């Protein structure tokens, strides 16, 4: 058995209530109505040769290989475009078909290079296989005629190449780019013999076109025309292991195709429930950071942060760290210790880190990056629905009629999900976008938003309240839903509140800057357009009223009855691959795993018994409060796994002051990140390819992560945490993550039915998974809210304290781009830098002109908190008065300007509203230069060649 691709059924699966029975080659087959003859044949174990068909795309009928003979039908129909009908009798191999297929193949091969033995697709080429299948022996036309063999190869894209000489113009790539990805970057240029695949215009290549490098075309290509450069360099893979991507909250499933321990390529897994065979540039291609020269593989320590690092053994590093922690604990008490769990590490690893902090350090000062992204989601949905976390799965979007997208940019942040959403929008669903910026989705090939409400940053609650006003006062509320499932008293209070004239779109227009007529139309569409679903992101949560906005969103869903079935719901687009998991595993300072408050004696007793220690019953510190306490001198030591708070958290000067004040900072990561500039102990980490465990994505779906190579640093991350715990006397003895999962299942009711074996059997499972829900739970609140009645909550608009004024007249908001991920720690160390080498400041032409700035100029961006310098991009995507940037590069120091303001309920930082001024500049600010110097100094490693004096 050599390497095998996943089975390709030729055309997509069809869902239908009725079944059809037919006969293929004498065998009886029964399939859902609407299935193609080709798929029916392949599902029954037979095969029909094809070239232009693949099961991610609908049948096209161009290659004429898949011809069959059907009784009582004239000619030889193509099986990919012929649906089954009852009683059909099909023959897939007859002398006539044999001749036809050989003839077709002969034509293809007459204009194709004959270098199979040295071709990168050797052994993995459908053309090669079909030529073998049909028994082609010679090409009677000869090879002297006109051909395309001299066409040059396009190597512009860093990850794959396009060799037109091998192209058979099956157009699978064009259809993949259109139907699966939705970017429409490819087309067939010319006709007849002159047909060729073209990326964008004739003078473009892949890199300069609209191509987003998702790899769908490469995956769809049956020949070596579109091929991964890694396969060209290494060779054909020998085996494949299914694992989960470690980038965003979509959680795509991939086959890691290997040769030995070398990763050849990542191919999306067709049975992945979150991605269904699609991927984006990051998960598909950007895994090179695992082998980047910046990767650190030995532990390092130093006594103070102005010294260079010293590489040491694991024993010495752990002993050093343990010694410091114990000394601090003895002098200042357990409350001076704490840690931060990673939203990128596995559930098992996160569970161990919070266990370490609570049971070994002895304090509850543990927090996670959900603090800075979706903590308001937790608070807001829990208050209104009684339970929080997305109510649907990603497939639900295919049943939606109206998509209301608020504060999210899925084509950049959740690209694979965005492609599904775009597919549904192209089928006719309507789109409402609420965002200060004209995101791509507003106007993209074959999609135009019905309404774009470009509100002022910071006025989310006002817009939501105005929409509620329209729905209630125009009689669009779904009273039967409300009376049946919601608290009617709370509804009455809330309805009276929103109906007040001061909450009308006309009155609030002055604040939101959204034209009242547009807002009314959008509200009516949401309420009456059919199944309406809300999708939102950090543009909702990262505000001083983030929790209130989430509650306002929940109110809208409840008042229109858009809860509890596929196609509706409230869907937070969670950012990190395992941020949902990190929250489930008890990373918050006030609760134990399973969302049980520390003050609950029964829960504490349960854990105390299992762990053999007594636990502090008081809530611990959140990250911003840890930094405050550090500056105050009462918080001294921190263990940070897989997080870079110096780059990602707001008000950089506050973060560095806090870190500098601590005596023992332990950073456990792949690279010397920005936070490590202030660290005393560095423990090297492992990548997702080097460990076993599970991630939980935005759909609450728990998916396995499988080890495909030994960790370059010597240990999986959970092993490192265990070593540290044991150096402090814990005596843990886990040998495999399945044991950690068993402990989680033992102690947490939501996961009581979960086990490694169940996951292996099912592939993935959405929590809760317990006695009541043995198969997991795709859609929540189906007949009633899971806990009590839906609660309407009055959310009064409280303007943020971050005000513009004459010195700071513009508003800055932030976001992400497709090719870089979060702080860029991983993606900056891959070839993705070709798309986004630096963060740019997007500015409206009017504002730019007023300041004498043009495209590409250096500009100083200043707020009351700090200032930094970056280059300008002039665009009308942002309204006058609003500027926008990304935060992927540490050199930009975008967080030097963000403020201390945060959400009232969860302290989620208000990244999205900063009053700024922009002016021309001629170079980096003093802070940037000082920081650059500090960075370089802190990254010195003793013994490096650069440090030795010249002889």
């Amino acid at each position, binding site marked *: 058995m050599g390497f095998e691709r996943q089975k390709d059924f030729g055309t997509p699966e069809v869902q239908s209530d009725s079944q059809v029975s037919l006969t293929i080659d004498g065998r009886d087959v029964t399939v859902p109505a609407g299935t193609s003859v080709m798929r029916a044949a392949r599902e029954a174990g037979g095969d029909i040769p094809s070239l232009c068909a693949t099961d991610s795309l609908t049948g096209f009928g161009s290659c004429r290989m898949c011809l069959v003979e059907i009784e009582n039908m004239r000619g030889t129909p193509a099986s990919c475009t012929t649906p089954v009908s009852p009683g059909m009798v099909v023959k897939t191999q007859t002398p006539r078909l044999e001749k036809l297929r050989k003839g077709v193949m002969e034509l293809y091969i007459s204009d194709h290079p004959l270098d199979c033995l040295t071709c990168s697709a050797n052994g993995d080429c459908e053309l090669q296989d079909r030529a073998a299948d049909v028994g082609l022996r010679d090409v009677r036309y000869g090879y002297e005629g006109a051909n395309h063999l001299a066409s040059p190869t396009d190597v512009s894209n860093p990850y794959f190449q396009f060799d037109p000489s091998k192209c058979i113009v099956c157009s699978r790539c064009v259809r993949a780019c259109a139907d699966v990805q939705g970017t429409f970057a490819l087309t067939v240029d010319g006709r007849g013999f002159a047909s060729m695949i073209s990326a964008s215009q004739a003078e473009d290549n892949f890199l300069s076109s609209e191509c987003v490098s998702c790899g769908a075309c490469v995956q769809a290509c049956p020949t070596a025309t579109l091929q991964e450069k890694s396969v060209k360099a290494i060779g054909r893979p020998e085996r494949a292991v299914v694992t989960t991507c470690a980038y965003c909250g979509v959680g795509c499933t991939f086959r890691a195709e290997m040769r030995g321990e070398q990763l050849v390529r990542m191919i999306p897994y067709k049975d992945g429930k979150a991605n269904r065979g699609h991927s984006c540039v990051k998960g598909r291609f950007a895994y090179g950071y695992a082998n980047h020269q910046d990767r650190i593989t030995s532990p390092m320590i130093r006594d103070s942060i102005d010294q260079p690092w010293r590489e040491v053994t694991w024993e010495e590093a752990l002993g050093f760290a343990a010694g410091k922690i114990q000394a601090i604990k003895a002098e200042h008490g357990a409350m001076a210790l704490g840690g931060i769990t990673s939203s990128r590490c596995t559930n098992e690893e996160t569970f161990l880190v919070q266990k370490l902090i609570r049971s070994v350090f002895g304090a509850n000062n543990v927090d996670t990056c959900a603090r800075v992204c979706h*903590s308001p989601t*937790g*608070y807001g*949905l*829990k*208050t*209104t629905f*009684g*339970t929080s976390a997305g109510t649907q799965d990603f497939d639900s979007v295919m049943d939606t009629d109206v998509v209301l997208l608020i504060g999210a940019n899925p084509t950049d942040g959740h690209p694979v999900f965005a492609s599904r959403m775009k597919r549904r929008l192209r089928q006719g669903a309507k789109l409402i976008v609420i965002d200060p910026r004209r995101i791509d989705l507003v106007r993209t090939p074959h999609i135009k938003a019905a309404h774009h409400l470009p509100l*002022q940053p910071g*006025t989310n609650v006002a817009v939501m309240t105005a929409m509620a006003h329209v729905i209630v006062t125009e009689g669009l509320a779904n009273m039967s839903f409300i009376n049946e499932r919601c608290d009617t008293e709370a509804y009455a209070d809330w309805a009276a509140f929103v109906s007040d004239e001061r909450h009308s779109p006309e009155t609030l227009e*002055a*604040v939101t800057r959204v034209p009242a007529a547009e807002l009314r139309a959008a509200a009516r569409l949401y309420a009456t357009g059919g199944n309406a679903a809300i999708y939102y992101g950090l543009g909702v949560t990262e505000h001083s*009223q983030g929790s209130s906005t989430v509650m306002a969103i929940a109110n809208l869903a409840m008042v229109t009855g858009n809860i509890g079935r596929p196609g509706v719901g409230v869907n937070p687009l969670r950012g990190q691959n395992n941020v949902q998991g990190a*929250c489930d595993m008890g990373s*918050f*300072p*006030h*609760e134990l795993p*399973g*969302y*049980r408050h520390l*003050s*609950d004696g029964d*829960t504490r*007793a*349960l854990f105390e018994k299992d762990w053999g220690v007594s636990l502090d019953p*008081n*809530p611990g*510190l959140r990250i911003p*409060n840890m930094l*405050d*306490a550090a500056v*105050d001198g009462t918080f001294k030591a921190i263990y940070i796994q897989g997080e870079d708070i110096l780059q990602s958290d707001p008000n950089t000067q506050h973060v560095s002051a806090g870190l500098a004040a601590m005596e023992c900072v332990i950073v456990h990561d792949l690279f010397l990140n920005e936070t490590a500039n202030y660290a005393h102990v560095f423990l090297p980490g492992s990548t997702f390819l080097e460990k076993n465990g599970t991630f939980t994505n935005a759909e609450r779906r728990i998916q396995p992560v499988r080890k495909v190579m030994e960790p370059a640093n010597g240990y999986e991350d959970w092993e490192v945490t265990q070593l540290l715990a044991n150096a402090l006397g814990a005596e843990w003895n886990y040998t495999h993550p399945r044991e950690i999962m068993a402990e989680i299942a033992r102690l*947490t*009711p939501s996961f009581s039915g979960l086990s490694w074996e169940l996951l292996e059997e099912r592939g993935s499972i959405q929590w*809760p998974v317990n006695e*009541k829900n043995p198969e997991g739970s795709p859609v929540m609140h189906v007949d009633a809210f*899971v*806990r*009590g009645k839906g*609660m309407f*909550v*009055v959310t*009064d*608009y*409280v*303007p*943020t304290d971050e*005000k*513009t*004024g*004459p*010195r700071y007249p513009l508003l800055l908001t932030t976001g992400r781009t497709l090719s870089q991920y979060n702080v860029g720690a991983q993606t900056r160390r891959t070839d993705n830098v070709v798309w986004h080498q630096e963060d740019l400041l997007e500015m409206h032409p009017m504002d730019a002109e007023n300041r004498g700035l043009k495209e590409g100029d250096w500009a100083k961006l200043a707020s*009351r908190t700090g200032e930094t310098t970056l280059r300008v991009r002039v665009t009308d995507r942002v309204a006058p008065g609003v500027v926008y940037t990304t935060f992927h590069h540490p050199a930009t120091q975008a967080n030097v300007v963000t403020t201390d*303001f945060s959400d*009232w*309920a*969860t*302290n989620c930082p208000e990244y999205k509203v900063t009053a700024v001024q922009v002016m021309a500049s001629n170079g980096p600010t003093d802070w940037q230069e000082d920081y650059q110097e500090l960075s370089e100094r802190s990254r010195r490693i003793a013994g490096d060649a650069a440090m030795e004096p010249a002889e």
Partner: protein
Amino acid sequence: MSSAFENGALADEVGHGTGTGSLARLRYMADQIARNFAAYGDEKAVLATADHIDMYWDPRMKAMIFADIAADGPGQGRGALSPIAGAAIDYLAKGNHPEHQTRATEFNASDEGGHSDAG
């Protein structure tokens, strides 16, 4: 409710930020919580603010602000907080623990599953 962005020259002179020093920051946080519960009506807002702080603040934070509430000088004690926040802190400092005012502070029982995070 005034427009957030209609301030003139005064906006820049008014104190910006959450205040330096931890106590100032804690007061700011308490005031902010109180402001967001204000729509419930004074009495309910006091209890809701107290409930939130009781369930989510770490002991050091509580100790710091409770110690200050009894003081009586200018810029100290209840005078330094908004009326609702001041009443809430006072209530907690006297050792009271309010009932749960919203579902945000209701957590799972030890054997309860599902639900999710708040905070």
